[in-house]
């Protein structure tokens, strides 16, 4: 077992990080760096949610944007049509996403690896095409989130990004803690067993469809929460921004770069990819030049080929 001494560097690191993150907006007072951190948190949330079903349980979902869009659209439509508080809308969206995941999971989980992955792509595309053609939900034009008075209750702030920062930090922290608990509990072991060998898992008493569904439901819940947060932050959503295949791919990418099946991987991945994306966009040419995506693509190939365990894998090797 670990001796108390060897735990000190870890605790110090965590403490330093916590202090840094808590005081970040006080140190970096301009909106731009705060926006970057908020985006890092957003992608960390998405990647960590995906990590639960894709990294731990090994079910490669390439259509996770559907849950993101579900969260974003549900809370927005409830706000637009009935003035429902975005927080309640967030819960409604997350609950709906969980239900959606059960419906999707039930037939899909019977499919083997590649079939499952492509099925998730197909479902994602069906969702996007449907929303584009549903005028009641805004269609291709999208929806503007109604401008409300700036307040925590309304989950809207217009003069400063700082509250958004802390809300994002809070949600991310909760999600990471939940993931940590899962990893240490029987759920984490069962998810990893499912990823490891299905027959062996069954022979050890694991009900495979049940646990796959649990993993996906938890994942969908938090992905949808991120969707509502995004809607309230950007104040505009459309199928192109919350449901595209590219977003689903990016989510996986962040998780893989950081290291699948680890608690810190998604944060590491987001912390590298988001600034990288901003940097290439700002310094290497205008939008559509896609240099950041080129780098992403090359990164994934390199990671898959040489270091499938991602950055966390590399870090563990140096310990």
């Amino acid at each position, binding site marked *: 077992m670990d001796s108390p001494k060897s735990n000190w560097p870890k605790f110090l690191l965590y403490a330093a990080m916590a202090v840094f993150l808590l005081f970040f907006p006080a140190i970096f007072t301009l909106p731009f760096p705060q926006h970057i951190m908020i985006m890092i948190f957003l992608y960390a949330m998405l990647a960590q949610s995906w990590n639960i079903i*894709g990294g731990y349980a*090994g079910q*490669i979902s390439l259509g996770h944007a559907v849950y993101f869009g579900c969260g974003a659209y549900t809370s927005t439509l409830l706000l637009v049509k009935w003035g429902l508080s975005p927080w309640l809308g967030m819960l409604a969206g997350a609950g709906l996403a969980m239900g959606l995941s059960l419906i999707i999971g039930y*037939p899909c989980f*019977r*499919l*083997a*690896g*590649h*079939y499952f*992955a*492509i*099925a998730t*792509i*197909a*479902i994602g*595309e*069906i969702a996007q*095409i*449907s929303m*584009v*053609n549903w005028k009641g939900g805004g269609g291709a034009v999208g929806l503007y989130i109604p401008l409300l008075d700036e307040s925590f209750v309304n989950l809207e702030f217009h003069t400063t990004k700082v509250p958004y920062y802390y809300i994002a930090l809070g949600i991310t922290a909760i999600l990471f803690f939940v993931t940590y608990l899962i990893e240490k509990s029987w759920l984490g072991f069962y998810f990893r067993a499912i990823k490891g060998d299905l027959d062996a898992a069954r022979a050890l008493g694991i009900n495979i469809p049940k646990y796959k569904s649990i993993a996906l439901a938890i994942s969908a819940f938090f992905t949808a929460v991120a969707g509502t947060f995004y809607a309230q932050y950007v104040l505009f959503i459309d199928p192109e921004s919350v449901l595209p*295949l590219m977003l689903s*791919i990016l989510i*996986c*990418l962040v998780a*893989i770069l950081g290291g*699948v099946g680890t608690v810190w991987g998604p944060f590491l991945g987001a912390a590298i990819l988001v600034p990288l994306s901003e940097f290439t966009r700002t310094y290497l040419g205008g939008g*559509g*030049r*896609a*240099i*950041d*995506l*080129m780098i*992403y*693509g*090359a*990164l*994934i*190939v*390199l*990671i*898959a*080929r*040489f270091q*499938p365990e991602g950055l966390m894998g590399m870090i563990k090797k140096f310990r």
Partner: protein
Amino acid sequence: MILPPVIQKRTSMFTTEIILQTLISGLLMGCVYALVAVGLCLIWGLMEIVNFAHGQFMMLAMFMTFWMYTLLGVDPLFSLPLGAVLLFLIGIATYFFIIKGILYTTFLAQIFATFGLGVFLHSMAQFLWTANYRSIQNPLIAGRIAAGKIFIGFPHLAAAVMCVIGFIFLYWFINKTEIGLALQAASEDREAASLMGINSNRIFAMGWGIGSACVGVAGVLLSNFFYIFPEVGFTFALIAYVAVALGGFGSIPGSFIAGVFIGLVEALGGLFIDPAFKYFSVYVLYLAVVFIRPQGLWGRY
């Protein structure tokens, strides 16, 4: 039979000619899908690795054709052998530089190796050539054939015919030549094949080369009448996956027939429901097939 309003509105506009026209367009396009699917199936059946960059390979062939035409004045017709060879080489290179190293690694790594390659190629195309839509203005193969009130675009017809020829050639190759039989043997049982003296590396590289050449041929042929842009690969790739799943993984004739079938479904879906929904029908078809019959219509698993 009471049809939903969106369908009812459209059926009133249908004449036999329109339906026939749609069926023929779908059939012709389906032949192109079919060749793309066959290329994917070959790789998939050979080593159970999905080439998620398959669509981007096709896109590369299309851009090659475009630049040969625009910069050197070479008509797509003459680019055909070049496209086949270029993609053959790209396929082999992909095998040796990327695939060989991930053959025995985790499933996740395998998916993402080709996935990453696809993302890279797609964004590279966007970076080098912008996202603008290009087209070849005056190809040699142009014009229409008229049969009564039905028009068949000559490029579409030529593409379909060439794809069918390509498939027949491939089928002959797989079943009647030594290399082809070696490919089949290796896909059935890698170890047994190597005991028979079949060098698995060379065979796999060959499989990648031929599979990519198929999609290269399809791409060159498409350039005659389809828009050329970095994202063009995505849709074709997705359709190819659906076709391979539909036809049963590992069955080359199955994939071909499924590809043609999907061409029809796509065309009819666009006609009877809404043009916006033509791909929608394809995705729904995929889900229907894998949910009801996971091994596909002709599959081995």
